[in-house]
């Protein structure tokens, strides 16, 4: 205990640890990808540097098409997600509707991509729930229509899936930074000048808001251009986008494909980077157009149509996601559910009764990795934030001038694992772990998960931590409390809810990790997410649904604990309720 506190007192250590834990794997991972891409993979005859892997790569049929798909679906999904988020916020900020949507979306943030994709597929497929519900009485179908909905060549289903997953993320990020933008007051000023609510927000608040959610938006863009699990379930296959194809090459028994896969991983990096560059260009353009529009003085007082349409869009999105998710538990207990029956003819809880048989070991593994990683990352983030608090430079000083654009090195570095396409450095990281004899160990998987969990915890906790009234700490120290006492007795309890929510976010991120677990775990570390995608290659929908349901339950459990624990602990403290 004491020693832990002494360590906390060492000002730079947490920052340095974070830099090493995040920076080293990225550097080694990228190097480990670059070398094979240039033909260097010893022991497989790859001693000579050559461009052959790239030549192989560019001779792959349909490569340009795959690149265009990654690029197009990623940009479209990001632009749509951001537009929906910002417009909805503009239309409904400060209303109870927004609160309601917030409450609905918060738990949806925890839904892993794969589970959301399965749910959507179960819902909208031609033999899916919606068509079953309407057949044959309304549609006249006694067999599913032959319509291309899932895996369409343009990737529309995949874009829909991505938007459904990213809107909750961006929306909650937006709500997290909104207090810093003083938007409610700005909007009051705008409406007193006669601006409609939506126009007022877009003209007066949006630019400042965008600056603050820019990194999350770029992370969404990088993710969407390189997504694997969602593409495997919903994406096109003739050809597939780049990332799932790379994964396919990595799995090919022919070693030449492995080199080609490395080259592909680098190409993925370039594609995602190019998408980011293009996005930055679009940012400029939008800002320029925005400035022009801001000066035109048009009030847009009647904005009910757009407000209604945004509400409908958001409602549709939330409704679809919830419906899809609810189908998972239903399928997990169904048997002999033939088309066009709206409900299964037999319901059996067999799979759930035998849960220790069907999913016991993966559940345990998922829990242990999730808890170990979340706690470690949580401690690191707390130690880092607390070290900033104690640093003589005092990053906090005046609340008004600090925060916001604090683009310190660590802030960017922490984002890097989310900004880089996972395939681009996981490939090299896998080779590194094999070399260290650490592949397939829980330790290596935890270390890799840490890279992705730490950013989420940091992002979730940073805002509340900075917004905490600094006067509490000042007051405490003037009452003679030492720094450790202030930390333990004042700051930590006041931030308890935020901290637990951040940990729940981190835990959910760990549960959802697919590629890192698959590649670094060498197949030996089986979590419910890797298992669910392995099962997706089989046809047993009930089992897929069982795993999808488990993927939902674990993160939701985390969020439930995060709200129940403070509520119980502070049940008699009115001011601690809704403190976040």
């Amino acid at each position, binding site marked *: 205990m004491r020693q832990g506190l002494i360590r906390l007192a060492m000002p730079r250590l947490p920052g340095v640890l974070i830099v090493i834990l995040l920076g080293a794997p990225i550097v080694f991972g990228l190097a480990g990808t670059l070398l094979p891409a240039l033909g260097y993979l010893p022991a497989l005859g790859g001693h000579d540097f050559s461009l052959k892997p790239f030549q192989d790569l560019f001779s792959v049929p*349909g490569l340009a098409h795959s690149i265009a798909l990654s690029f197009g679906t990623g940009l479209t999904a990001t632009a749509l997600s951001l537009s929906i988020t910002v417009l909805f916020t503009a239309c409904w900020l400060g209303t109870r509707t927004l609160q309601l949507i917030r409450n609905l979306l918060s738990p949806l943030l925890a839904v892993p991509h794969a589970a959301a994709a399965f749910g959507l597929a179960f819902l909208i497929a031609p033999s899916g729930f919606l068509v079953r519900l309407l057949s044959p009485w309304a549609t006249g179908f006694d*067999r*599913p229509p032959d319509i291309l909905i899932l895996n369409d060549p343009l990737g529309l289903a995949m874009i829909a899936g991505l938007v459904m997953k990213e809107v909750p993320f961006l929306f909650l990020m937006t709500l997290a930074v909104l207090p810093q933008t003083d938007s409610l007051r700005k909007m009051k000023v705008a409406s007193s000048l006669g601006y409609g609510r939506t126009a007022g927000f877009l003209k007066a608040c949006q630019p400042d808001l965008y600056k603050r959610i820019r990194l999350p938006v770029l992370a969404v863009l990088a993710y969407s251009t390189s997504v694997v699990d969602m593409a495997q379930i919903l994406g096109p*296959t*003739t*050809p597939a986008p780049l990332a799932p194809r790379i994964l396919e090459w990595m799995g090919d028994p022919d070693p030449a494909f492995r080199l080609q896969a490395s080259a592909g991983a680098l190409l993925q990096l370039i594609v995602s980077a190019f998408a980011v560059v293009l996005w930055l260009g679009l940012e400029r353009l939008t800002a320029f157009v925005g400035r022009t529009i801001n000066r035109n003085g048009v009030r847009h007082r009647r904005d009910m149509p757009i407000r209604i349409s945004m509400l409908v869009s958001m409602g549709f999105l939330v409704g679809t996601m919830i419906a899809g998710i609810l189908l998972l538990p239903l399928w997990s207990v169904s048997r002999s559910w033939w088309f066009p029956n709206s409900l299964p003819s037999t319901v059996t809880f067999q799979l759930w009764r035998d849960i220790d048989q069907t999913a016991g070991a993966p559940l345990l593994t998922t829990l242990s990795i999730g808890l170990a990683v979340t706690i470690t990352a949580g401690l690191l983030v707390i130690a880092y934030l607390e070290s900033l608090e104690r640093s003589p430079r005092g990053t906090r000083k005046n609340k008004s001038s600090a925060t916001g654009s604090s683009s310190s090195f660590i802030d960017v570095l922490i984002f890097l694992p989310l900004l880089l396409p996972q395939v681009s450095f996981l490939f090299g990281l896998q080779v590194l772990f094999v070399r260290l004899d650490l592949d397939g160990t829980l330790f290596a998987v935890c270390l890799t998960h840490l890279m992705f969990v730490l950013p989420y915890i940091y992002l979730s906790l940073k805002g509340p931590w900075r917004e905490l009234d600094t006067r509490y700490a000042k007051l405490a120290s003037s009452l003679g409390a030492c720094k450790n006492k202030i930390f333990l007795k004042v700051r930590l309890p006041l931030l308890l809810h935020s901290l637990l929510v951040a940990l729940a976010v981190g835990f959910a991120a760990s549960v959802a990790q697919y590629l890192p677990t698959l590649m670094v775990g060498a197949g030996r570390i089986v979590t419910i997410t890797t298992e669910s995608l392995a099962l997706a290659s089989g*046809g047993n929908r009930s089992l897929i649904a069982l795993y999808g349901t488990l993927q939902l339950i674990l993160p939701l459990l985390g969020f439930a604990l995060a709200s129940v624990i403070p509520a119980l602990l502070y049940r008699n403290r009115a001011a601690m309720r809704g403190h976040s």
Partner: protein
Amino acid sequence: MRANSLRSLLGQIFLATALAASTAMQANAEDANWRVVEETAKGQTVYFHAWGGEPRINDYINWAAGEVKKKYGVTVKQVKVADTASVVTQVISEKTAGRESAGSVDLVWINGENFATLKEQGLLAAPGWAQALPNWKNVDVEGKPTVLSDFTIATDGQESPWGMAKLVFIYDSARLPEPPSSLAALADYATAHPGRISYPQPPNFHGSTFLKQILISLIDDADKLQRPVQEETFDADVAPLFDYLDKLHPNLWRKAQAFPQNGAQMRQLLADGELDIAITFNPGDASSAIANGELPDTARSFVFDGGTIGNSHFVAIPFNSSAKEGSMVFANFLLSPEAQARKQDPAVWGDPTVLNVAALSDEDKARFNAIDLGPATLKPSDLGATLPEPHPTWVAALEKAWAAHYGGS
């Protein structure tokens, strides 16, 4: 044309018989050796990498693991993989990293191209171990030559046969009274019922097999398929295949803009009523699926008139396996009449045996005779001829050509 393949077949059989004879002569010594293997295996943990997409198979593996734990003290853990090729990659990457022992793959479920790659790269345990297994004596080497020749590659005792596979189609007799029993009939059916026929997208194994099946029927000289691909003639060789597909595709499910990703998904689509025909490599599949509530009771199996492609699947030990003895004990158990009979039961898995049932003891014969093959499994006499798998080089070439034709722009 046939003479060639026959000669190579005879050669393999001769080799096997010779090996068997020498094994018999050293029977006592072998017995002692095997006891050493069993002794060493005790306490070992075998990481068995096996495709995990089928719960019934996983359950079977789980049962077998329990048996060897009880009988021999060997712990077997199934590592469920989505694609066996990734296991090959893993072994390769361990070789890359210089891990010569204590590898992460102890035993792998394998055949065909994956086996060929591992064998070629010298990434398998030394030859001969499979024939040295005590239960090898029951393997039907004569009746099932594919147990020695895996996609034309000699197994050389580097993999131990586990089960038999044969391309079989599943249909729902309630919707489709007369299944199309030839390529021409299939194309006609697709024209008459657009959107109800498809095949898994290559490079999926079932999809590639479907391509090979078509190619065997349409290529001018089927003997070419027993040799490595000739690049110069390849385009001409496969031209009839792509002519056929070009005509078929406009009438396929989703107009061939999307494909089922594998056989299991195809079976699901058959159950959903999206497709009329599914492809499987396991003749017992339809019966098992009915028993599981995954297909309606009216599901049945059929094959093409001229026969369909068949092969064997195996278990192999990588060069750096950390539990070679344990893996051998497990492989040997998988070959036992007890394990093989249970595997053939459609209620369990429905995978045909590699053993020569006629030569077994009466007690073991009874195990097989007691199996109810189920309503949808074809009798061995109705399964038709088994066409040999082409040389593995054809698979990669076909997959690439397919992608160039249909997977691109």
